[in-house]
Structures are given as C-alpha cells and as structure tokens.
C-alpha cells in the first residue's frame, strides 16, 4: 500500500514536472516556443538599412513566422536615402512601418518626437513579455541610449557597434618584424596602446611595393570622418563641446587630432584614400593588404569569410588607443536599435518581433550576417568561438558616443564638409576647424544653447 502511494506520488511529481515544464518551457523564445498574445495573421513591416542589418533581419524572419503565425515584410533601404525615408514617413504619421531598426544618431530627437512607442507597457506586462526577456542582460550603455530620464524605454538594442582596433597578429608577432621595428622606433612591436604607436606601426608597415599598407580609412564625404576625429579627440579627454556647450574645435587637442588623421591618410594608407569606400576598407584588410584597421565589428564577417579572406586566424583585437599610456581611450560607439513605430497598427505584434530579434535566441541567428550581440549572456557564451567579443564587450561598456542633442545632425553636416575640405586639401586645418567652430557657435546661439 505504502509502495503504491509512493509510486503514485512519484508519478504525479514526474507528470507535473513534465506538464509544467512543457507549458512554461515551451512558451518562451529560449525554449523553442512562443509566449504572448495571439498574433497569427498579423503583418509586421520592418524598415532597416540594406546590407548587414537587412540580412540579419531576413535570417530571423522564418523562425519568428513559424513560431507566431505572423507575417514579416522586410523593407531594406539604401544608406543614401535611409534617413530621409524614415523621417518623412514618421513625420507624415504614416503607418507604413511597424518596426524600425535604426542607428543611434537621432536618439534624442526620436525619443522626444512622439513617433516611437514607449515599450515599458509591453515589457512590464506579464501577458505580453517573454518570461526570459531579461532586460538586465543587455549591456547598460547601449541599452540606455534609448532610455529617457523618466525611465521610458524606446528601443531594444539590436546590434552592438563600437569601433574596435583590429591588427594582423602574424605581422606584429613576427620575430623579424619585431627586430626591425625595435631598431627603428626604439620600443617593442606590439598592438598599439597609444595613437603615436598606432601611427608608428602604420608607417612601419607602409610598403606599397609589397602591396602592404599600414592602415586604411574611408575618406569619402560622410559621418565616418566625424568618428575618426572624435576617437582622437576623446583620447585626449576632449569632447566636441564642453560642459557649457562651448565648441572645442579650435583647441590644440582638436588640431592635433585632425592633423594626426590627415598624416595617416597621406602617409600610411593605400593611394587615393579619398576614393576608398567602406566596403573596400574591409575587403582590403581581409585580402591581407592592411596591417591594422580601426573599424566597426561587422568587418569580422569579411575577415572570417573562408572563400575570400586571406587573414583568417591572423587577426587580433583590442580597444582603441589613447594618446598617453594611462590616458583615456578613444573608444566610441554607435549601435542599431529596434523600435516600434507609434503609428503602427500592429504594435503588439511589432513589439513581439523586436523582442524576438533581440532575444538571446534571436540574437545568435543574426550574427553570421555581421550583426553582433548586445546581451552579456550571448557575448560571454560565444567569446571562445569569437575572441573579438571580449574586446567588443569591453568597448561597449566603456565607450563614449557622439553628442546626443536634437540639433546634432546639422552640426555634424557642417563638420563633415569642413573635415572633408581639409582631408582633400582645399582648406588648412585651422581654416576648416575655425569655420566649423564659427558656424557651430552661430547655430548654438540660434538654438539658445549659448548666449
């Protein structure tokens, strides 16, 4: 009798464990299921940048559709028209897009615009949010970019983006190269910790006759120039504006940063640097023509391409250099974020898509397309398989961002024009930076930031 009762209790416990695990475990992204309201038949339209971003989303769609019964339509948009497409649609109140995967540049504007749906009500609703959502698993600095002072959350981080220093281990660790470098520069050849070391290494490996160049940039007219200047200024503990919003572009630090950038572009990069595109940068590094590069982590996809890369297993990663051995680094981050449009007619379905796309399970699916994770758990889990993730996590935890006030875009355009004029030789460094400073001061007065 006792045995019978014990067996029944045992069977009941086993049955309960299977039953409850089956419900709770299966109703979660992590457990291969879906938890939340019924969104089958709903259509979610996703707008994002054509290329890595859209490829990542495309990879995530089939499983989301299979688990939820919803339909996802992806709208990849070219970089040249991406901002315009987004803003004109949002400003017009269009419901064309439910989900927008967008970069960090306009975070302050978008949070104040009323165009984005605050996500708190979904995240905090136990009937909607996935049980394993775990907001705290996101790295805080990128997560906070789209979190306002009142604690409203306007996005979930989709892609961790921060500039990382990639270098050719095979070149830097080569004993002959080490010997020659020490003879010439008086210190050990190793991954650069300061900008001067970076420039020395670039100069040392500048060997056009061997089709090897010290470094590479894209000097096309665009926002990359601003990042390049920022990383060299931030490493001198100097931002574009001081705490009183006074521009700092005519400081010795800004001049030094701009001159260092131009020196590199003229002395330690491939010829015709002003015609090198972003994709060409990555290709050249992967083909083995470049000794070191400071680039977004998406370059890892090109480096690890077994069909085309000549540098697989030959690349190391580190934080960006500083100007002095113990000084601040120039680490700087961008990032891409998944939002729900406030004009969407399918907000719950849109939220569930971005929840999926940024979940621990969903994150891993988009990695091969070049979209690196932002969750601590994913970065830790994959760090052995992808050694770059140690550097990426470190950078994302400590990196600065470009200025984040609503009118920054206009200021950035002024800086891009002047920097490009300087890089291409039609202005001196002082002309370019003073012109930028003056225009910025005028705009700051117009907008009421300074008197």
């Amino acid at each position, binding site marked *: 009798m006792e045995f019978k009762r014990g067996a029944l209790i045992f069977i009941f416990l086993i049955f309960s464990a299977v039953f409850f695990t089956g419900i709770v475990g299966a109703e979660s992204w992590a457990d291969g299921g879906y938890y939340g309201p019924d969104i089958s038949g709903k259509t979610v339209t996703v707008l994002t940048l054509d290329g890595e971003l859209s490829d990542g989303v495309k990879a995530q769609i089939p499983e989301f559709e299979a688990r939820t019964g919803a339909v996802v339509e992806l709208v990849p948009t070219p970089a040249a028209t991406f901002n315009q497409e987004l803003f004109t649609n949002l400003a017009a109140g269009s419901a064309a897009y439910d989900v927008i995967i967008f970069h960090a540049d306009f975070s302050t504007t978008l949070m104040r615009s009323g165009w984005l749906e605050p996500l708190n009500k979904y995240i905090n609703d136990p009937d909607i949010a996935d049980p394993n959502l775990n907001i705290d698993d996101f790295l805080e600095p990128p997560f906070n970019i789209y979190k306002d002072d009142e604690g409203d959350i306007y996005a979930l981080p989709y892609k961790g983006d921060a500039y990382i220093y990639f270098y050719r281990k095979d070149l830097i660790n080569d004993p002959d190269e080490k010997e020659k470098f020490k003879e010439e520069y008086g210190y050990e050849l190793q991954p650069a910790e300061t900008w001067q070391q970076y420039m020395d290494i670039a100069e040392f490996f500048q060997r056009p006759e061997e089709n090897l160049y010290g470094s590479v940039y894209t000097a096309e007219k665009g926002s990359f120039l601003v990042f390049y200047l920022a990383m060299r200024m931030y490493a001198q503990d100097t931002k574009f504006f001081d705490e009183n919003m006074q521009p700092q572009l005519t400081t010795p630090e800004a001049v030094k940063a701009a001159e260092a950038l131009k020196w590199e572009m003229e002395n330690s990069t491939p010829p015709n640097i002003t*015609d090198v595109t972003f994709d060409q940068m990555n290709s050249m590094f992967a083909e083995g023509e470049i000794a070191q590069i400071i680039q977004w982590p998406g370059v890892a996809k090109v480096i690890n391409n077994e069909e085309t890369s000549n540098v697989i297993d030959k690349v190391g990663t580190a934080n960006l250099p500083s100007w002095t051995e113990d000084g601040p680094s120039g680490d700087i981050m961008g990032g891409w974020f998944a939002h729900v449009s406030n004009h969407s007619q399918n907000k719950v379905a849109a939220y569930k898509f971005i929840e999926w796309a940024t979940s621990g399970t969903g994150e891993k699916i988009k990695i091969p397309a070049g979209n690196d994770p932002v969750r601590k758990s994913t970065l830790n889990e994959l760090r052995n398989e992808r050694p770059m993730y140690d550097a990426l996590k470190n950078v994302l935890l400590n990196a600065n961002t470009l200025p984040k006030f609503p009118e920054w875009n*206009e200021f950035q355009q002024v800086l891009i024009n002047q920097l490009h004029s300087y890089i291409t030789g039609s*202005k001196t460094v002082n002309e370019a930076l003073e012109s930028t400073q003056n225009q910025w001061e005028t705009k700051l007065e117009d907008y009421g930031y300074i008197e």
Partner: protein
Amino acid sequence: MLEKIKKSKMIYIIPAFLLLGLVLVFPIIYSINISFKNYVMTLPFREVVYVGLDNYIDVLTDPRFYNSLKVTLIITFGSLTLQLIFGLSLAIALNNKLMEENKLLKSQTIRGVLFIPSMLMGVIIGLMWQLGLNPTYGIFNEWLSYLFGTQSYFSSSTLAIPTIVFIEFWRGTPMVMLILAAGLKGIPMTPYEAADVDGATSWQKFVYITLPLLKPVLVITIILRTMDVLRIFDFIFITTSGGPGNLTEVLSIYAYNTSFVSMRISQGAAISWVITLIILIFSFIYFKYLYKRE
C-alpha cells in the same frame, strides 16, 4: 447653371485641371507656405511658426549659398561654351555636303550613336563616370594615366570642377548638335549662292550668313541648356555629392542637402524658390537681350 456647365466643353477638361492642381499647384503653394516657416524635420517637438522672410535672409546671407551659386555658374557657362562650340561644329559637319554624299556618315546610325550621351539618365551617367574614373580600377582613369598619371578626379580640389564641367559638356553636346543641325537645315541656300557669286570665303559665309540666320535657334538652345544646367543635380549627386568639401555643391545639391540631409525643410524650400528666381532672371535676360526680332 449646372446645365450651362454641362453643355459647356469645360466639363471635359475639369478632371485634368483637378489633377494638375493636385500634382502641380498644391505642391507649389505648399512649398511657398513652408518656406516662410521654421520647420526642421529632426525637431518635430518644436512649434512650427511663421518666421517671415528669415529663411530667405538666411539663404541670401549664407556664404555657402554664394559658393553654390559660383560653382553652378562656372559649371553652367563652362560646359555651355564647350557645348556650343562642339555642338555647332558637329552640326555643321553633319550638314556638310561631303557627309551627305557618304552613305555611312549620312546614316541615322551615326547620328544615333552620337546622341547616346544625351539619352542616358543622369544617374547612369554618374555611375558610369564614377566607375570609369575610379583611380583603382577605372578604365577611363587607366587611359588618362598615360597622359596625366593616376588621379582622383572627383576627390581632387583642382580637378573636381573641371571633371564635372567635362561630363556635362559630354552629356549636353549631342542635344545642342541636334537642335542646331535642325536649325541649319532650315537656312535657305539662296544667301550662300549669292555669297559664292561675290567670292565670299567659308569663314565669311559662316559669320555673315550662318550665324545671323541661326541666331533664333541658337538663343533657344542657349536658354534651354542654361535652364537645364542651372538645375543640374543627378550625376553630381552620384559622383561627388557636392564634394570635396563643398567644392562642387551646386545650387540644387545645396537645396537637397539642406532639405534632406540637414532636414531643414523650410530653409530648403526657400533655397528652391531662390533658385527658381535665378533661373527666371536668366531667362528674362536671354529673351530681352539675345532674342531681338529684326
């Protein structure tokens, strides 16, 4: 009243007028209206109010506007001069007796091939020249390197504008050739026969007969091409985007950058109307001083 309207023929063209109003009149009125406001698309939380002539004053006191105007005028008159010289030369050559007698040279195929640059879309022209002049793999750059060495034509502070002038010249010359060739065909032979009797040289016939009789066609050609080039945008956007720096930022690219890159919609609208005014002024000057009826 309704019967009157129904009987009137107006009823048949009202739909067309409504459509015209929607796609033409409404955007124009909206554009004028927004040019007097302070709308910036990246500041959606800021109240949009009327600011009077502030946008127009900002444009007319902006050094960047005058840079754009200067660049536009250089490209316009530089390319137009070349187009007229070469276009007229080609038109004369096509109408030459020797050409007429040669079966191959007379064929429409040759004329069609010559006209290809004017038929291409601006975006295609931009892509073609961007790829062709790329210093790393461009075929045109390779050919030119035997004369000038490898150059970054679109990124060079000295070569960017001449390169743009050349491309516009390459694109517009066939159109000029076509119009002037048609104009030459309309000139009667009698004055030339009389000139032959008087022993006039070819140059004298060209200066004293061809040019004066071709003048109305020339003026129309100049007006049309000037208005086209003053509004130039497409291939410059593809090749230089107004760079290096602002060196090739023509008026339309300045308007585009202000409206859609800086997102200053109201100011961009004001710039567009200033550009329109400039084109109208040029048209007025041409008609008043060049198109004098005898």
